[in-house]
């Protein structure tokens, strides 16, 4: 629910409730005042009757007056209690209006009479109606004004909030864009702006620190790895190793090779993320892929994998170094997760690069495969290949996606 909707809802409900209550109180008060007025008029009439009787010792004559009727009727002595009543006022023979009456009594020449004075309330009610109408009108007008005002004020008032929100949404930890200062005098938004800016700056700083750390750590590791490597190369120059020693040395070689590849992958990842590899040139992907397939021929045949290649001409503007890494990572991936007598299908069109491979007959978790160091339990890769591939694609605004279809794992680069 939008803030404005909620705010309007609360606002209007409150206004209506308060207005209705006010209306009722108002109505009651006016009715009471006007009734009181009526009663006073009735009392004046009653007094006139009393005065007349006192003076003339007879009942006054009854005249038809416009809004008042008096009737006298004989009654049993002391049977009448003086009271005001709501009754009907007869305008014409069959036309009744609401009226207010006063029942009183008087004794004239020993005879006991009931006096009934009735006054029409039509004018009073008209007045109430008018007042009530005006009140309703005011309520409606007020609501309308409130709605419009809320909309205008809120939209304008919350503008800084929305612009800060937009900035936060656009925030990307890897680019250099900062959250700009929003021009607003509202303290809360100024604070929000500052907090968001501080938070993103901190996040960027931490991220940079982490990257620097990764880079430095990988760098520092390079030298000892280089030393181990060279010492191993030197060691095998000495004569006479037995089988067991050879086996140990071979294992050492493999481990060091893996360590150094892992290390290089980490360094590469940092570099791609930092966008340090910015050279761009036109690359003919078809030639590049053909070359790569030729290069890896021995490995395909060693693993008894059949490779089918179907390539159209396609050129991209990108870093040759990174594109080579991207393609070789994907090809290596397809070999690594394949089985003996498996297939790899490589297809290049003007819009996509597909690489399909046979392998485990269940799809990979596509939310995890691109995360660092995620790898299947039987993989001896670094766990960084797909992460690097994804990063490279992002660098050049390509997209890399994964599908599993009919026993084929497919990676698709969309240019």
């Amino acid at each position, binding site marked *: 629910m939008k803030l404005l909707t909620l705010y309007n809802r609360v606002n209007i409900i409150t206004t209506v409730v308060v207005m209705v209550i006010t209306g009722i109180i108002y109505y009651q008060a006016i009715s009471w005042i006007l009734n009181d007025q009526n009663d006073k008029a009735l009392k004046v009439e009653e007094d006139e009757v009393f005065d007349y009787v006192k003076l003339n010792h007879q009942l006054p004559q009854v005249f038809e007056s416009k809004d008042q009727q008096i009737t006298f009727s004989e009654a049993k002595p002391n049977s009448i209690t003086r009271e005001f009543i709501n009754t009907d006022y007869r305008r014409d023979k069959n036309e009744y209006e609401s009226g207010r009456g006063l029942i009183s009594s008087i004794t004239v020449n020993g005879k006991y009479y009931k006096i009934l004075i009735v006054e029409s309330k039509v004018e009073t009610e008209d007045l109430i109606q008018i007042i009530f109408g005006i009140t309703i009108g005011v309520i409606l007008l007020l609501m309308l004004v409130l709605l419009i005002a809320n909309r205008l004020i809120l939209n304008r008032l919350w503008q800084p909030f929305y612009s800060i929100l937009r900035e936060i949404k656009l925030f990307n930890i890897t680019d250099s864009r900062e959250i700009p200062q929003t021009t607003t005098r509202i303290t809360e938004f100024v604070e929000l702006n500052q907090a968001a800016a501080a938070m993103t700056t901190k996040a960027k700083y931490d991220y940079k620190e982490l990257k620097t750390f990764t880079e430095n750590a990988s760098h520092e590791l*390079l030298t000892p790895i*280089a030393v181990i490597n060279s010492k191993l190369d030197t060691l095998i120059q000495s004569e006479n190793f037995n089988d067991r020693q*050879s*086996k140990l040395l071979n294992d050492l*070689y493999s481990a060091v090779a893996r360590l150094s590849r892992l290390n290089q992958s980490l360094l590469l990842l940092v570099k791609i993320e930092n966008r340090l590899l910015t050279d761009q040139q036109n690359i003919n992907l078809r030639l590049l892929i053909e070359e790569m397939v030729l290069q890896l021929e021995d490995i395909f045949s060693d693993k008894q994998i059949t490779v089918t290649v179907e390539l159209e001409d396609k050129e991209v503007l990108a870093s040759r170094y990174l594109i080579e890494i991207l393609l070789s990572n994907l090809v290596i991936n397809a070999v690594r997760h394949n089985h003996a007598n498996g297939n790899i299908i490589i297809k290049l069109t003007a819009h996509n690069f597909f690489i399909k491979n046979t392998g485990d007959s269940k799809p990979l978790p596509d939310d995890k495969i691109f995360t660092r160091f995620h790898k299947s339990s039987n993989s001896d890769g670094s766990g960084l290949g797909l992460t690097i591939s994804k990063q490279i694609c992002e660098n050049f605004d390509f997209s890399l996606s994964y599908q599993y279809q009919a026993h084929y794992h497919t990676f698709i680069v969309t240019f």
Partner: protein
Amino acid sequence: MKLLIIEDEEGLRESIEEYFAEAGNICETAATYSAALTKVELYRYDCILLDITLPGGNGISILKKLKENNFTDGVLIISAKNSLDDRLQGLDLGADDYLVKPFHLSELKARVSAIIRRKMYNGSNLLVFNEISIDLQAKTVSVHDTPLKFTRKEFALLIYFIANKGKVVSKNAIAEHLWGDGIDLADNFDFIYSHIKNIRKKLVEAGANDYIQAAYGMGYKFSGQ
């Protein structure tokens, strides 16, 4: 040949020195920027192995100094920084090659040999080893003037072996040389063996000596005799 190894890491420097030390080779070393600069100003070398990050300065400055003085020493940059910028800058400034740490000593030797070959036999593309002669330009191999048919990888491997003659070259080093990054796929190096078998067969059938020997299951040795 006369080499200067400029490398601050002692372990690496010693290994390189030992690997290159053989009859006819003179290896000098420098561990710091100033030591390197002194040597470079005083003596000429066939090839200088140049580390970029040195205590007291940057290897790139040494390279600049060489070029300013028009010294024609071959320069191979060995660096921990696998940055394209460094590589391009180094090559732009006139370095002959660029090798990223960590590397196999056999790979280093192959690269140095290539640099020296280009320097010493100016214009000549012929690499001769006893009865085997290799035309590097045309990529052909012949034994006793009989041309042989070598595949691309066999050719590369033969040159690699000759550059490292007398040394045990590990299977890992061979694999990385021939297949680059793709090689960590290989569970075993059987397919290296098939390449080597082919090379031996072709050479021996053409009347050459069988130079290539397996070395304790770890690698191969191209014996110099």
